[in-house]
């Protein structure tokens, strides 16, 4: 026979379990009714100074929280293929005001802000402001000058300011020697593929962060494709001049150019030749950042990274 006390314990335990399960289920239903409620793009306090004051001196921890929030915000928007990132720059501003020495916030922040949507927020000027703020507070960190020059070069094709950023960075003690080379390259801004390859190789070599390195790998793969397609299209033009028609196939073009084989992309797939003489990659979805070799009207997919070549 169960005692009264034991009976109460059993009933209370069952009530607790049932109530907990019911509340979880209800909350899931409520979330379905208002799907955006928990991820609403709201900055409750938009003033960086106010957030700093409210942190009661624990601004380092607040900066970590805001940086995590920035990463989550960017990740969600990026995943949703968003074309607007309205809160990204304010979140980065708050993060770096709370902790002006938080280097990842500048480095990743610039790479979130600068590229065109959907890869980034398409705000290169805000990225430049962020980097200049970072340099003002961390003048001895050569990576920040490098990233600033990178934004000028890749997003704005502003060779003069890119050269200036690399030049300033090269004067920082213990700066990597390639900064001086980059400054010189920018000054003459010739050989775009060579320069771009050097930039992304440097980005790969100078970072231990997985995402930065994978991003660099993707760009290096894309540069190789762009360069290959450019060279192949030149070969097609030469063939057309010689034969008065476009080559019928890639093997015909390869034989005419004495290549000893059909040219392949970084994944080992042969480049395709269309009937109108255009060169395309077999799987454009595997090369996120390519600007050439895609079918007409092609739209790039979500990023997915590959192993380093």
């Amino acid at each position, binding site marked *: 026979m169960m005692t009264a006390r034991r009976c109460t314990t059993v009933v209370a335990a069952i009530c607790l379990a049932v109530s907990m399960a019911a509340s979880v289920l209800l909350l899931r239903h409520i979330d379905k009714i208002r799907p955006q409620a928990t991820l609403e793009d709201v900055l409750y306090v938009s003033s960086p100074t106010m957030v700093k*004051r409210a942190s*009661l*001196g*624990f*601004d*380092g*921890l607040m*900066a*970590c929280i805001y*940086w*995590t929030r920035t*990463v*989550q915000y960017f990740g969600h928007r990026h995943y949703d293929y968003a074309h607007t990132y309205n809160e990204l720059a304010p979140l980065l501003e708050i993060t770096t005001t709370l*902790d002006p*020495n*938080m280097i*990842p916030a500048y480095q*990743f922040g610039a790479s979130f802000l600068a590229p065109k949507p959907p890869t980034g927020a398409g705000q290169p000027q805000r990225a430049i402001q962020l980097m200049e703020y970072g340099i003002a507070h961390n003048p001895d960190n050569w990576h920040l000058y490098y990233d600033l020059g990178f934004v000028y070069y890749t997003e704005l094709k502003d060779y003069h300011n890119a050269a200036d950023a690399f030049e300033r960075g090269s004067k920082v003690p213990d700066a990597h020697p390639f900064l001086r080379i980059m400054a010189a390259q920018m000054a003459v801004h010739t050989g775009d593929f060579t320069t771009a390859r050097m930039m992304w190789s440097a980005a790969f070599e100078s970072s231990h*962060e997985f*995402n930065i390195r994978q991003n660099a790998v993707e760009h290096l793969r894309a540069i190789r494709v762009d360069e290959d397609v450019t060279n192949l299209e030149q070969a097609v033009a030469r063939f057309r001049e010689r034969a008065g028609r476009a080559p019928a196939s890639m093997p015909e073009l390869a034989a005419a150019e004495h290549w000893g084989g059909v040219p392949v992309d970084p994944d080992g797939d042969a480049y395709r030749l269309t009937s109108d003489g255009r060169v395309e990659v077999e799987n454009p979805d595997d090369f996120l950042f390519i600007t050439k070799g895609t079918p007409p009207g092609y739209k790039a997919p979500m990023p997915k990274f590959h192993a380093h070549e």
Partner: protein
Amino acid sequence: MSPRILHIARNTFREAVRDRVLYNLIAFALLLSGAAIFVGQISIDIERLVVVNLGLTAVSLFGVVIAIFIGIGLVSKEIEKRTLYTVLSRPVRRWEFIVGKFFGLAGTLVVNTFFMAIGVFGALLYVAHKFSRPDALILVALYFIVLEFLIICSLALLFSSFSSPLLSAVFAFSLFVIGSFADDLRGFAAMAHGATRWFATGAAYLVPNFSALNVISAVAHEQPMGGQLILQNTLYALFYTAMALSGAVLIFERRNLK
């Protein structure tokens, strides 16, 4: 130190342990291990920064809460339970009672901080896989946090010596918040004119300056701490604590306990 002060301090420490104050270590351990494991998955490149910032902030806030909520009851609880009369009927001076209570609470917080420090270093080892030379700076930040506790303990005792526990908690917590804004207060004083300037400057120097003792962010970025700062912060904390304790003794000596 007089053996009577030592006895009171030891009993205060035992009482705090019996009140399960050290249970906060479990919450701290869960918080830190959770952060160490999950932050790497939801953020980028700030694992060490989070462990140091979160660890030291938690040490500081947990300690401040313990200091305030235990400190405010140290005198009033003894009066309420009438154990104070038993203590004072023995050859124990009132100032010895206050000082003993202070050392007991400070000891509790030092022991608590010691275990939390082990947790911080453990989490750091988990995320970084090894210790580096700048990690020693965390000890400086922990030392400053202990100095902060000394000031708060003495303030809680000061308020406890003349006020109710609720009001003491409000006063002590308000001073903690104001003390965190001490630098701003000094900034306001510099912008003011005439009597307001004098009043604001006086207030800025009267409230404890906790911002000078908060080096968590700097330590997280491995910025070096000068010996002068350590020395002067130590002296500042000791003088301020002595000032608040003297105030508590002065009030308690004249308090009518009948």
